[in-house]
């Protein structure tokens, strides 16, 4: 599971860089280039939320087996 997540994140970072080279709009949001940091942080938070949801899911499955 952990291995999958790391490879997924590596893929994402690679994808972001690919986009960084093609996108050349001078919009305010991306002018400094640091928007990727924010995107990365949002992605990390979301991945953690999903992992948490999966754990909750497992706990419920265990309870269902008991019931």
């Amino acid at each position, binding site marked *: 599971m952990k291995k999958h997540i790391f490879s997924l994140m590596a893929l994402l970072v690679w994808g972001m860089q690919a986009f960084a080279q093609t996108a050349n709009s001078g919009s305010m949001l991306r002018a400094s280039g640091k928007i990727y940091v924010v995107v990365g942080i949002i992605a990390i938070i979301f991945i953690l939320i999903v992992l948490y949801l*999966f754990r909750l899911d497992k706990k*419920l499955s265990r309870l269902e087996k008991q019931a």
Partner: protein
Amino acid sequence: MKFLQKAWYKALAALLVLYTLVYGLLIELPADVGILDETIRNLFYHVPMWFGMMLILLAAWVNSIMYLSKPNPKRDAYATELTNVGLLMGFCGLFTGMFWAYNTWGTAWTNDPKLNGVAAGMAIYGGYWMIQKSVNDDAKRARLGAVYNVFVFPIFLALIVVMPKLAQSSIHPGSGDTVNFKTYNSSQNMEMVFYPAVVGWTLLFVWIAELRTRYRLIKLHKDNEKAHF
């Protein structure tokens, strides 16, 4: 493999929303979005809340009908929790919409037909919550809720889709005298994020609804056990 068989839609939801979060912020925008500017990216976050809400409430509606044709606590649990989570999505859409409106139109609440329709619709769904919370007999509560839901969902759709379309004017895209988002997208980039966003966000909330339903059924099972002693 077994994991994928059981949880494929959860994994898909996570992947699609992750894709939306990352690329929704990074893609290049069409040049002709006017005052919306960068906030057009809300199309990937605010709009899927409403689409997802409608899809989830539709699923709840189907479950209510199934409950009425053949009473089964499982159908009732699904209908109730899908409605709850659908409305949660609606509130997400409402609050994000108010924030977006404040920063684009200058006020959090305009007298747009879409906004007033949604306000009335949510108030009607408040009646559903009232039934859920105020009837103690489980079978009666389930039946009342199901009947109410069968009537409420079409009314809700009429209020948030049909009425705004018929209105004289609106500042929402695709209602009244306004055009759809599609007609002024000069770039296909946005559609490549928008559709996955709708599917992803919807499945994510369906997942939450499923968790709540399973919790509800376990609780029901435990309560029944207690009642037998």
